[in-house]
């Protein structure tokens, strides 16, 4: 089984963002889950946004290449 290029890119982004360190306040055992959720949320939100605007994005790209 091969990991597709999109998955690989996402992994790299996640790992990069994940290891940025912030340490200020009280923590609890759910902290890791919270942070992971925020990161996954950014990705999933991005994917949904791209899906939503996909037609517009595609037409813009097509126009760019035509000119």
């Amino acid at each position, binding site marked *: 089984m091969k990991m597709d290029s999109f998955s690989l890119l996402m*992994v790299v982004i996640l790992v990069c963002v994940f290891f940025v360190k912030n340490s200020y*306040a009280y923590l609890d*055992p759910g902290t890791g889950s919270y942070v*992971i959720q925020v990161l996954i949320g950014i990705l999933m939100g991005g994917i949904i946004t791209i899906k939503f605007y996909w037609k517009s994005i595609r037409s813009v790209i097509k126009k760019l290449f035509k000119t």
Partner: protein
Amino acid sequence: MKKLIKPIQSSFRDPSGFLFYGNGLLYRQINKIYREHYDHLMISGLYSRLIKERLLIPHIELDNGPSEQIEIYKIIQPEFISFISYPYEWCFSQLKDAALTTLKIQKIALESGMSLKDASAFNIQFKDGKPLLIDTLSFEKYKEGQPWVAYRQFCQHFLAPLALMSLTDFRMNQLFRVYIDGFPLDLASMLLPKNSWLKFSLFCHIHLHARGQKHFSDKQTNLQRHRVSKLSLLGIIDNLEKTIKKLNWSPKGTEWGDYYEKTNYSPEAQEHKKLILNDYLERIKPNTVWDIGANTGLFSRLASDKKLFTISFDADPAAVEKNYLDCVNKKENYILPLILDLTNPSPAIGWANQERMSLLERGPADMIFALALVHHLAISNNLPFDNIAPYFSKLCKYLVIEFVPKNDSKVLKLLSTREDIFKDYTQEAFEKSFRVFFSIEAANKLKDSDRVLYLMKGL
């Protein structure tokens, strides 16, 4: 009512309220701190929609009158659930349907400005053949930017068990007996096959999540800085839903169609057995029937087809899976297939061993079917009849039990690989042991067989 209140031992974690028995009926107290959320649930239309879609347990509000207890906001009476079952008793598809129900509820809740504050598999129960949420106090008002507080719990209670059952071994749901708050993600990550790292969703929600938990377990972080937009939240839920829908399980090397079709009965003997069982059901008219060792539920359906609430227990998760899928396909409302090994029945677990009930505490059933079971208990498990009879007498009021003699092909097979140390395995000894706890109301020898069906009444 106040003086007769008996709180349920599993209902102590959430300060929003608790369940209790009063005058033999089940109620839920809602505390004032939950008022804002409860009112929003009822007024926003969310409650009505969830009830309409059969996703939440319906309830009625009681006029509890003036109360001395200042924390009480309302008392509600939820609809009765015939039998409380637990995730370690569910097959793969039951847990999968429970997971998808939880996500569907969360999606609908977000549309009404609310969010699930917990996502425990124990909050889902099967009623009329469908999974639904039984905790009315699981909702809280949603604030934009707020992460899903139950995300960790959802991964531990649903995603990790389903992934393990699907990709590692379908018996993995038994870990629920040990880990009452869901599977630890580090353990799930370790037990999942290596190729699960290449599945993007499982990589994120389980492997990366497990490492995230470990990484932040001894670090301080400013949670206020972390916000999840509603779009992101919907993206996560959508992704979890797609991931779970893709997880499947079926027995290897065989087709569902011919799984468990082999019996050692002649068609005449099988029809005769059905006739006798129907006769017993007509005579006793039980409200609840437990079919123990039900296989795929052939005889359970004699009871459930009569609209008697029937639990179809079997130790083999594959048989229970097939039974459940048949129930779903045929939209059967009166039968609940569950995994149970009677030689090691579900124990009482959790805090003070009182959070989750043992099998015995959830009985007694009006009637138990123990068909083609006694030789497994007595010979495979070395249980003397004197030990089998008293346990059945605690589990039911009426017992329908099939005696399988030593010359039966199934017993001969069991004895073929071991020494016969069962000199007392005789019909006379069987009757003698059971007569201590039951009166024998009927005994019918099956056609084309030496097996005997008994109808017994608890003394």
